């Protein structure tokens, strides 16, 4: 029995974690997603919203979809370069929703045209047409 116990003890020692010469693998760190990406769902609809506001308010030509996309991409790169962040994904999602809704609703809202500036020249008298004798 003594020899059997000795064998079992040696095997148990070999099985124990302390006997493992291999170093423990470092814990794998999961890269956190780039927070700057959270601006993308905000910037794109915001560009659409701003374009809608300008078009409606100032009666300028509506931006094409490709133009809006190009503007949005440029703004995203700018945000990435300056490392602009929205830490909370939920906040980013709500802002994106607000911007998208605004871009949809704004063109449907009738904005009164701005009042024409006053003309400094006196109004011309309109002569009545000559009456035939």
């Amino acid at each position: 029995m003594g020899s059997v116990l000795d064998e079992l003890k040696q095997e148990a020692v070999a099985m124990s974690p302390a006997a493992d010469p291999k170093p423990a693998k470092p814990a794998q760190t999961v890269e956190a997603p780039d927070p700057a990406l959270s601006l993308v769902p905000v910037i794109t609809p915001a560009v659409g919203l701003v374009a809608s506001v300008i078009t409606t308010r100032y009666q300028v030509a509506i931006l094409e979809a490709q133009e809006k996309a190009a503007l949005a991409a440029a703004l995203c790169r700018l945000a990435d370069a300056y490392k602009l962040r929205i830490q909370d994904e939920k906040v980013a999602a709500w802002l994106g929703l607000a911007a998208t809704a605004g871009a949809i609703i704004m063109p449907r809202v009738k904005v009164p045209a701005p009042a024409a500036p006053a003309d400094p020249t006196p109004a011309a008298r309109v002569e009545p047409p000559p009456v035939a004798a």
Partner: protein
Amino acid sequence: MQPDKASVNLYFGMSGTGKTCAALADIAIAPAILFDINQQARLARNAAVCCTPLELIAALEKKSRRICWRGFEMMGAAAFEYANMVAWRLGGYSVFWDEVDMMMAPAHVPVYAYRIINAGRHRGIGIYATARRPAAMSRHLTAASTRALSFRVIGVTDGDYLRRQFFPDLGRDLPQLQPGHALISDAQGERLKKIF
């Protein structure tokens, strides 16, 4: 009458009927390794609690008569076979397999468990196994049983199995057994007995 220490004793019954208590009472003072998969306090009472292989070997070196083996958390399913291997190679220690249907599939028996079931008595290794689901037990184990004790069982599948395998005469009374009463089937035949 106490069971033969090197026999195969099975205990069945619903949860809380007293299977574990009956098995521990039958083990009495015989040297035994208790496979505590559920970490029950009553199995650790007056026992050397071992959670690692080194602790188990150390308890055996000290000749502890009752060893509570809780290596399942560290070793997982391999803890069952490891302790069986130790019991087989050492001899002289009975094994208590609590909730054995959780540790062995009906059709697959690990190597050392198989050896203990078939030839453990030659090494002084008795088996005390409890199960809530007799129909889910290993057929090797039930076929090798020398004594079966069942408390109340109401499941249809389990009741039918117990009637066919162990209690052909009294098995119909299984769902109506009173608390503390059990059917026993061994070399002397079937009988109803008040255990507690």
